[in-house]
């Protein structure tokens, strides 16, 4: 008898969490801004191809001595900031838009426990980021590889296996941004505030840190979110604004902290605050 009740309770709990997940997915997929954000992320691939095509055209029309000196950045690594920012905003909007419209009151009346709501939101935006990041990274990479061919001293001719770790970690940084955005949104409950802080963390603080005198520029530069994928794969970061003091595991832990710490802090606040 006891085991039966506990099993049915388990079943009900599982059903409930599936329902919460389904409702969060419905909320995300039924607003225009999500579609716009995801389209914009995918548009990065086109932007990458456009830049590659333009660079290839300039390379072909340049005299041979300029050609030998010409270099090109790995475009998918530069352009990843677009899907990162887009998914970050998606994460912010999944919660702050509820505060704008007042939907949050209905949401929390239906599911009074805060954790399931937040977990479901995190699952939905995290999964979207997980799909979008690698898609954009690999899409940009393969198309740029095809357009650039062996131009620019063979920047795109290295075997795929060598580039794979970088492509995967850079792609995986996108869901981190989605969760970071969600966490900031839960904490601040304001679209403008959360997006501004997100942008601050990604762009403004690294610029300030880059201007600091050594050794602090290198030390703080190593924990900036943009430099972490490179440190995980052990890339050469000497010419970037970021530092490279962290070993791969530590960099991975810091990256995960960016995703999880704001959500945990937000969950704590959400449990304590009235809506």
């Amino acid at each position, binding site marked *: 008898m006891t085991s039966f009740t506990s099993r049915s309770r388990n079943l009900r709990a599982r059903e409930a969490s599936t329902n919460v997940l389904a409702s969060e997915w419905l909320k995300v997929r039924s607003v225009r801004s999500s579609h716009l954000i995801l389209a914009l992320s995918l548009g990065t691939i086109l932007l990458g191809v456009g830049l590659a095509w333009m660079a290839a055209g300039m390379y072909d029309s340049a005299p041979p001595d300029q050609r030998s000196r010409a270099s090109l950045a790995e475009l998918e690594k*530069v*352009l990843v*900031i677009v899907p990162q920012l887009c998914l970050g905003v998606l994460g912010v909007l999944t919660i702050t838009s509820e505060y704008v419209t007042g939907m949050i009151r209905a949401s929390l009346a239906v599911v009074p426990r805060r954790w399931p709501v937040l977990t479901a939101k995190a699952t939905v935006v995290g999964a979207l980021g997980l799909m979008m990041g690698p898609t954009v990274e690999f899409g940009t990479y393969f198309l740029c590889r095809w357009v650039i061919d062996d131009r620019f001293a063979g920047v795109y001719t290295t075997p795929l296996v060598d580039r794979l770790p970088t492509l995967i970690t850079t792609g995986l940084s996108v869901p981190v941004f989605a969760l970071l955005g969600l966490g900031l949104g839960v904490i601040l409950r304001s679209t403008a505030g959360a997006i501004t802080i997100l942008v601050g963390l990604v762009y*403004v603080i690294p610029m300030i840190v880059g201007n600091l005198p050594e050794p602090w520029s290198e030390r703080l530069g190593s924990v900036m979110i943009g430099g972490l994928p490179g440190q995980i794969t052990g890339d050469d970061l000497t010419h970037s604004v970021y530092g490279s003091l962290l070993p791969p595991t530590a960099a991975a832990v810091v990256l995960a902290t960016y995703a999880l710490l704001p959500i945990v802090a937000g969950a704590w606040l959400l449990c304590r605050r009235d809506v």
Partner: protein
Amino acid sequence: MRAVLSSEWLKLRSVTPTYHAIGIAALMVALGVVWTFYVSGLTAERGSVQAAAPEQAFLPLIQISLVVIGVLAITSEHTTGMIRSGLTAVSRRGALLLAKAGVAGAVTFVAAHVVILITYVVSWLIADDRPLGFNETVFSHDLPILLASGSSVTVLALVGLGLGFVTRSTAGSIVSVVPVLFVLPTIAAYLPAPWHTRVTALMLPNLVPQIAGQRPSRGFGDSFLPPWGVSAMRQGYAVIALAVGFHMLRRRDA
């Protein structure tokens, strides 16, 4: 028009985000103090330091925080529905847009210049006569870049306002300003030479040093823009964003 201006001023000064934004911008003074003390401490062991001026190093902080004032001036009305009463009271849409631009422009102009000048003076006083790199020029030499930095904030706030009229969404406008400020300059730097210098020179944040007659950005060649071209380009950003915003405002229902 005076009534419209005063109503916009009332809207702006009676909400908390305005003060949050100015408060975050004012953090620059505190950061500048910490910065200058830290750099001054370094001179004891190294003799002299080539440090960036605090009001330049922390400029993006003011830019991004005060842009929010421009954006929220319109998007918050769309969020709350205030825009409907706003346009019922002031049915000439051009007047509404101009009043918003005037008030947001003036507030960000004053706030940015005050914060930048205080940071400049305080760091200059702390630095005293230690050779820190940034305090070795006279005020009249630094004035053009101080004014250029301050007014760049206003231009950005107006770009934000224009984009706010276009997108009618807080998230949309802030996200559209970010590329102008951070993403496009980054991507431009990766273009092949000589295009990276040409395109970089046109980027809004890089117009600031050019107004003071410096290179667009570290590591790039000299600017090809004449001085009048630089200011026209800068005003152009705000004018175009506001013009597109006005066009959308006039054609769309609220």
